[in-house]
């Protein structure tokens, strides 16, 4: 009996100590960690828009995030968009609810600052103020709209889809006509040397410049990647571009409407990324068109 008690107490105490250490480290580091994640997303976004340290973003470039929620009331589902709206000199937020056919239902002002809106927990508590039970809401996805001056420059879509092993997380940049501006793989766990090559320039840059029409019908071909195309795709990385000035444009237009060349030994990963991107673009184009129709018909003073 004495033994049992000693073992129980010993285990409990060691668990408590471990929990205490882990918990306090978490509390200390949480803020810095969140900050790093935020910086990371910002860097990915700017990188996709073509801004680097040596070529910084202009000061009138603004990034606005909109968040899509799915609201359910008994059996009916509606869509709720948390939209940044112009309020005085700053940006406020409102929740705009529409049904699945794109018909406007209602709009509610939300009491949030842009800093608070980027935190999932803060958004939830603000939404709870206006979405009263028995109605419930579930977070669906986010979109970042990049605006340069008064024009929309690009849409940035964080997304995920199943790869060969686990989910592949990506960030996709589209211009206002839904042409792909760039693709960045943010998280993946494919096989190193095979599927993991999806994050290499010579694969992901193949998506760059594909038009909306082309993306709708994008396939993967199991052909070796032509050398000149590979050199073109990797030209950003190389210090001295191996391609003569005049030829860059020629190579670009030659391959612009080609399908995606599969990676050697990783056809499934290549296909997963291609299909995932295809899906993301198609769904997003559909959604944003509906959203824009409602916004313009209701004269919502959106910031983006």
């Amino acid at each position, binding site marked *: 009996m004495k*033994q049992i008690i*000693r073992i129980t107490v*010993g*285990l409990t105490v060691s668990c408590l100590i471990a929990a205490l250490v*882990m918990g306090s*480290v978490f509390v200390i*580091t949480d803020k810095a960690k969140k900050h*790093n994640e935020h910086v990371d997303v910002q860097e990915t976004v700017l990188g996709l828009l073509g801004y680097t340290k040596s070529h910084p973003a202009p000061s009138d470039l603004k990034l606005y995030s909109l968040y899509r929620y799915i609201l359910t009331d008994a059996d009916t589902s509606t869509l709720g968009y948390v939209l940044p709206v112009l309020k005085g000199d700053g940006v406020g937020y409102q929740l705009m609810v529409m049904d699945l056919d794109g018909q406007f239902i209602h709009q509610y002002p939300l009491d949030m600052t842009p800093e608070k809106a980027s935190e999932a927990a803060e958004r939830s508590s603000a939404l709870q103020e206006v979405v009263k039970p028995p109605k419930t809401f579930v977070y669906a996805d986010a979109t970042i709209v990049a605006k340069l001056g008064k024009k929309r420059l690009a849409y940035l879509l964080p997304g995920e889809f199943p790869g060969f092993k686990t989910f592949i997380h990506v960030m996709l940049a589209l211009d206002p006509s839904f042409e792909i501006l760039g693709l960045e793989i943010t998280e993946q766990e494919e*096989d190193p040397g095979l599927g993991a090559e999806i994050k290499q320039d010579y694969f992901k840059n193949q998506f760059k410049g594909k038009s909306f029409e082309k993306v709708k019908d994008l396939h993967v071909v199991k052909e070796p990647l032509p050398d000149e195309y590979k050199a073109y795709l990797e030209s950003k990385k190389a210090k001295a571009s191996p391609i003569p000035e005049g030829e860059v444009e020629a190579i670009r237009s030659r391959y612009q409407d080609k399908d995606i060349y599969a990676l050697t030994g990783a056809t499934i990963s290549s296909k997963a990324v291609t299909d995932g991107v295809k899906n993301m673009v198609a769904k997003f184009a559909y959604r944003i068109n509906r959203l824009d129709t409602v916004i313009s018909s209701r004269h919502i003073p959106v910031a983006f």
Partner: protein
Amino acid sequence: MPATTKTNFELVSNGILNENPIFRLALSMCPAVGISTTVMNGIMLGIAVLFVQVFSSCTIAAIKNYIHPRIRIPTYTLTIATWVTVIDLVLAAYMPAAYKEMGIFVKLIVAFAIITMRLETFACKNSVPASFWDGIGMGFGFMFGMVALGFVRELLGMGTILGYDVLGFRPLLFFVLPAAGFFCVGIMMAMFNYMEIVYNRKRRAR
């Protein structure tokens, strides 16, 4: 095993050669087979294991007198898990660049046999400084094994070393696949055993 009488240098070299975790103790084979596809992966995982091994060994050596013998294994697991979590969080918060490269490797470590085994056979019977040097030796031994495997597999599988193209072509794609890990480990283990036989024979002849 009574407390060790080895010097610090012997403790370190013991981990790298005589008791190399991968080739001699044949522990932690999952990462040895799964992760060692490139030299870089080997280095990253090696560094991660080195830190967790040293910290855990020192902790256990320091508190060994307070652990009830019946619950020592759960305590080891808890210690390792705590250190892994702490290193993971600290890296994520203060070294984002390093975390991007090493994050996935650090999280893998909790289940590594080599660390638990070292705590059980060494740290819980020896002083803190001896455990520290033993941890260093084991960490570097593991890193050496991973890098050696990664070198062979990356060179033969992808024709590159540390990402730089050295061969210009891919000789045998097979070497990147997990199955080839077993072949590489097996062949290297045989080489290690052969070297030991030769060494012992020479010593006997003397």
